[in-house]
């Protein structure tokens, strides 16, 4: 039962940590690196609260043994804002009251950011599909979907203003 040195590029910064066998990527982020935005919910991949983006794909980090993620590029919610400056997606969540208790929010934001990176103009149904692995037990889905669509509009508006 030997711990292993793991290297991850987390939010653009190379990080190194020591992990015992059985440590998940989620455990490494939270307990090893102190990045607690990804939440420990069901530990079975069923709730999406631990969603992070690994090598460009939104995934539940509780299902990945951290050794398997060695060398990966990981994006967490901590890396989304630059300083106090929220992204349009985060601002849309704030403005649209798209959080209730907040436990699902970081996972929702990571799934939404992966969606918008791939599909900047999603339909309402595409947004619903994208967050279908993220459970909101306050059942605030309508506001969350509205906020993601709003974020897509805001990003396009910024893009077209820049093009002008």
């Amino acid at each position, binding site marked *: 039962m030997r711990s292993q040195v793991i290297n991850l590029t987390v939010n653009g910064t190379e990080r190194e940590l020591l992990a015992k066998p059985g440590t*998940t990527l989620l455990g490494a982020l939270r307990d090893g690196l102190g990045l607690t935005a990804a939440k420990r919910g069901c530990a079975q991949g069923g709730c999406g609260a631990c969603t992070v983006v690994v090598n460009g794909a939104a995934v539940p980090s509780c299902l990945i043994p951290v050794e398997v993620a060695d060398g990966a590029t990981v994006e967490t919610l901590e890396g989304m804002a630059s300083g106090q400056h929220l992204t349009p997606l985060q601002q849309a969540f704030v403005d649209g009251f798209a959080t209730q208790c907040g436990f699902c929010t970081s996972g929702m934001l990571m799934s939404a950011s992966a969606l918008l990176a791939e599909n900047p103009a999603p339909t309402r149904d595409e947004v619903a*599909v994208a967050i279908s692995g*993220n459970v909101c037990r306050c059942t605030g889905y309508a506001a969350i979907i509205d906020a993601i669509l709003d974020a897509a509009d805001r990003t396009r508006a910024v893009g077209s203003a820049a093009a002008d």
Partner: protein
Amino acid sequence: MLRQVLLPADVGAAVSTLAGDPTAVLVAGGTLVMPAVNTTVTPIETLVSTRDLGLAGVAVERGIARVGAATTLTALGNHPDLGFLRPTVASFASPIIRNLATVGGNLFASQPYGDLAVALLALDATAEIAGPDGPREAPVSEVLEQRVRPGEIVAAVRFALPAAGTWRWTKAMRRRLNSAAIVAVAAVVETDGGVVSAARIALGGAGSRPVRARAVEAALLGKPLDEASVTAAASLALSEAEPFSDAYASAWYRGRVLPVHIRRALLGA
């Protein structure tokens, strides 16, 4: 208790480890193994990761698809040459799970999980297996019934692309998105001169593993693909199915709706 996570660099090394260590388990996407590791006391001491085995990827040549076992469901559903499977794969779990879950792993899920195994059974897929005694091939139906021998790894599955318009898939769910199957029906149905000339129908939610509905298939042969003959044939499904109760549906309900969803799969109504 987990003692090590290994990332062998090739299939041979993975097979030797699995063959020599009864506490070792192969892990690909982790959607089956990791819930057990995270939340239960398991006899698993060694995880052998597929990450570096080179088993991911889809190749379609001359009408035959070869899909590496570590191909994710997302990659499978997005492949341009497998368009017929796109809506089918979209009904499996959620995008974040499809980004991890693999084609090979689906063969080892217990129903009502492992929707892709139902589809592969209807496609009459063949599994390419690596093992301590060298490579072998087996029908996916056999892998679903007997699993694989100690030390063996499913490396890929192969299937012939169904002719245009012959693929059918219906999955009854409690929710529209991200829900396990109440029942799932996969089928390849060919017609010639207005009557069914060939049919392969596989059922999910109708037993602990996906099963072929052979009585339904036989009853359809030579009949027109219409409501009367499909309804009559679908009524035979229960003779081969063993619907079960779980949090999604009772055995009674599964049995009650199975013929309905066979009809919907085959006729779209």
